[in-house]
């Protein structure tokens, strides 16, 4: 009996010893880091830590503006197998607001939370934009920070289309049409915050208006134009479609917007050189076999013509400019040799100058400003300056626009030169004659494949006439445009 009792006690002891509690393991969740916080978005990192291969029914984050999480936003990431890190992201938060976040997991219906961390959403800021100048429809980049989803951009009061928002820091927008102000601040609106540029955006300027048409059904080429005063603009000579030489001029009266004929006492001609006060050279017959040069030389004063002694050279397609009343002519003579002549208005004499470093002709563009002459090479766009005091040439800049097939406009208004409209292009650029910086103007309307007929300055406007290139078939009127460099 004693044996049975001892055996029973022993078995009981074994039985107790063999009972082990079921190991439920350790599983918990932590809120590790704020990986990203912007104006309206945060990205949080959490971690499920467990010594078992658990199956979590749901996990994610709670986010609230108060530490008690009374009205939380829940980032639910769903089921998760096994322990490990997880990332949750939420957007649509309020700018510049303090939040509290904690990770959670739902294990078997029991929700556990991790530690609470605090974070703040950020404020937007405007850093810069580029380019600072442009035309409607062009793309512009705004650099800044915390531009969340739904950011709106305004140029003044005109809303721009936001094409791309890269990492909430770089907005690609399309420049909207201007309202009435060519210089406007760029404003970025996000939620209830507005940030704006310190410097205004400058719209590309240049307004065009057709003020008249050249009389008759004419397409004029290789002509002459000049003005002795701001209100009377002369266009004439040259040829009608290079088939018939045109005699005389048409004078445009800026005040009355009317045309009237003005006769020319000299020979009709094409490819003459001219300035506002002189014309000469060219060919008096069409065709090139051989060229029939005209050596007569004329001065224009108050709309009248005065014949001067004949030229000491023959030329076709030469280019001319005036400096302080003296005339400078560059080109090639009948022997196809480059020349550079100066006509002294006080002594009525011609002087041969040292040749220019490159060949210049009517295919280029020329203007004078101050005591210097300037030529834009129609081949490579180099802007040359010529100093008559020492006959020195130097390169100043390069025309940034399209050169087409050469022969462009160059007109000075105040401290700006307006250069462009090379043949078969429609670009005009403004050159600051103090800093020699370029700024693009709005392109000229009309057929881009046009060539220059004439250009003048009258008051704050340029008057420009072009005609479709000779190779463009059809009947076109020669529209006379008034160009406002500051117009939009």
């Amino acid at each position, binding site marked *: 009996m004693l044996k049975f009792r001892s055996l029973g006690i022993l078995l009981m002891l074994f039985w107790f010893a063999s009972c082990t509690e079921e190991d439920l393991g350790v599983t918990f969740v932590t809120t590790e*880091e704020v990986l*990203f916080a*912007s104006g309206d978005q945060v990205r949080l990192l959490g971690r499920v830590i467990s010594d078992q291969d658990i199956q979590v029914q749901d996990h994610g984050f709670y986010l609230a503006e108060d530490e008690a999480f009374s009205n939380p936003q829940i980032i639910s990431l769903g089921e998760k197998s096994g322990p490990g*890190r997880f*990332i949750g992201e939420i957007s649509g938060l309020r700018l510049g607001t303090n939040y509290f976040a904690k990770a959670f997991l739902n294990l078997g219906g029991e929700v556990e939370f991790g530690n609470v961390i605090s974070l703040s959403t*950020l404020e937007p800021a405007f850093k810069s934009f580029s380019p600072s100048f442009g035309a409607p429809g062009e793309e512009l980049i705004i650099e800044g*920070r915390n531009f969340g989803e739904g950011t709106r951009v305004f140029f003044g009061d005109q809303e721009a289309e936001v094409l791309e928002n890269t*990492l*909430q*820091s770089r907005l690609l927008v399309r420049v909207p049409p201007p309202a009435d102000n060519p210089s406007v601040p760029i404003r970025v609106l996000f939620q209830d915050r507005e940030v704006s540029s310190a410097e205004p955006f400058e719209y590309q300027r240049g307004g065009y208006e057709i003020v008249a048409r050249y009389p008759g059904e004419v397409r004029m080429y290789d002509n002459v134009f000049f003005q002795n005063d701001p209100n009377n603009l002369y266009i004439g000579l040259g040829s009608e479609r290079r088939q018939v030489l045109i005699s005389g001029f048409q004078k445009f009266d800026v005040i009355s917007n009317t045309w009237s004929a003005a006769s020319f006492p000299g020979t009709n001609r094409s490819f003459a050189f001219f300035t506002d006060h002189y014309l000469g050279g060219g060919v008096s017959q069409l065709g090139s076999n051989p060229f029939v040069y005209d050596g007569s030389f004329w001065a224009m004063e108050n709309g009248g013509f005065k014949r001067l002694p004949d030229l000491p050279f023959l030329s076709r397609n030469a280019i001319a400019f005036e400096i302080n009343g003296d005339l400078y002519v560059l080109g090639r003579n009948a022997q196809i040799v480059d020349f550079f002549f100066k006509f002294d208005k006080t002594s009525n004499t011609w002087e041969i100058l040292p040749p220019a470093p490159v060949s210049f002709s009517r295919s280029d563009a020329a203007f004078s400003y101050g005591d210097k002459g300037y030529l834009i090479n129609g081949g490579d766009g180099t802007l040359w300056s010529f100093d008559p005091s020492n006959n020195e040439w130097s390169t100043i800049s390069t025309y940034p626009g399209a050169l087409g097939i050469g022969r462009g406009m160059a007109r000075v208004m105040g401290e700006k030169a307006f250069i462009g409209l090379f043949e078969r292009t429609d670009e005009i650029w403004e050159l600051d004659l103090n800093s020699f910086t370029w700024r693009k103007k709005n392109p000229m309307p009309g057929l881009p494949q046009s060539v220059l007929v004439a250009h003048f300055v009258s008051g704050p406007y340029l008057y420009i006439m072009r005609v479709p290139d000779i190779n463009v078939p059809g009947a076109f009127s020669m529209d006379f445009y008034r160009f406002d460099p500051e117009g939009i």
Partner: protein
Amino acid sequence: MPKMFKRLIYILLLLPMACIDPYEVGLETGEQLLTVEAVLTSVPGRQEVRLTRSDTYGSVFEGLIRPVRGATVVVRDDLGEVVFLEENLEDRGSYLTPADFATQPGRTYTLQIQTTDGKVYSSFPEKVEAVPEINSVGIETITIPVEGEENVRSGIQLIVDIQDPGDENNFYLWKNGPSIYVLETRPDLFTPRPSDTNPSRDPQPKDCCITCFRSEQLNNSGIFIANDDNFNGLNTRLVAGFVEDDGLRFVNTYRVDLRQISISQEAYRFLRLVKQQTEISGSVFDPPPANIRGNMINLENPEEVVLGYFIAGAETVRRIYVNKSQLTFAQPKSIIPDDCREVEGAQLDPPADWNP
């Protein structure tokens, strides 16, 4: 008969015990892991983030470490300011900050990477702590015995003297910056390599030049880090770098810029583990090989292993000139029998700021 039956049962019992299942070792090899190397500091300049893909390591050729091309790499601070890095087209996989980029003490930075396959990675935020100035840099000549060789290796240790701030826990990383030294060669011993145009094997001494200034960017031989657990708030001297004597560097005068960078505690921990792994010598006291997790994470798959670390810190630089007379042991002078200008990185004129 029953006896035989018993024996048969024993044999049958032994049979299953003889079956051994081979153990398959499931090592993950060949995975091309994104590797990030970036130390951005407060010294303005074009700073680099290098992205590569790891490949299988083995005793035989298995793969190449390839640069990660065409990624979008940005550094973002805790205000939301984003800096876009530009890939160096001459050194693919190297992404450079703008020239004026510099970290600011007190700010927190994250690195964000989007690869061409659309995966997005982010670093954990790295806070930039201020770095104390280096009071001075000294040197100490050391020799390193080489097993099986009579000649020893030698070089100089760079010893920094710093005043550690007492009100914060500081972690330091030192790196060798650009160096330059007076290079002496023997153009009088020049013998050209025979070629079709010059088949002669006779010496053809050159008139010039014996002395040049050679620039080089030394790879750091070792990881030099410290924390201030043992010297918090105290003035201390620490080993911060090593420059090996190759028989050329210390013939005359050597100059190096020593960079001292404040790093975060997590970056220090990472570098300490890397240092431990790289200094395993094969003894029984070595730490076991381990995969060291960095601070980069794949936003879609946080469990993806990303190697490397994004470090953002503040930096101070101290320049030191070392004259050959300061070395207590020097390697025999190496002879380059040519014009010194022919040596890569050498130029005749000293740099404008050469002021030993």
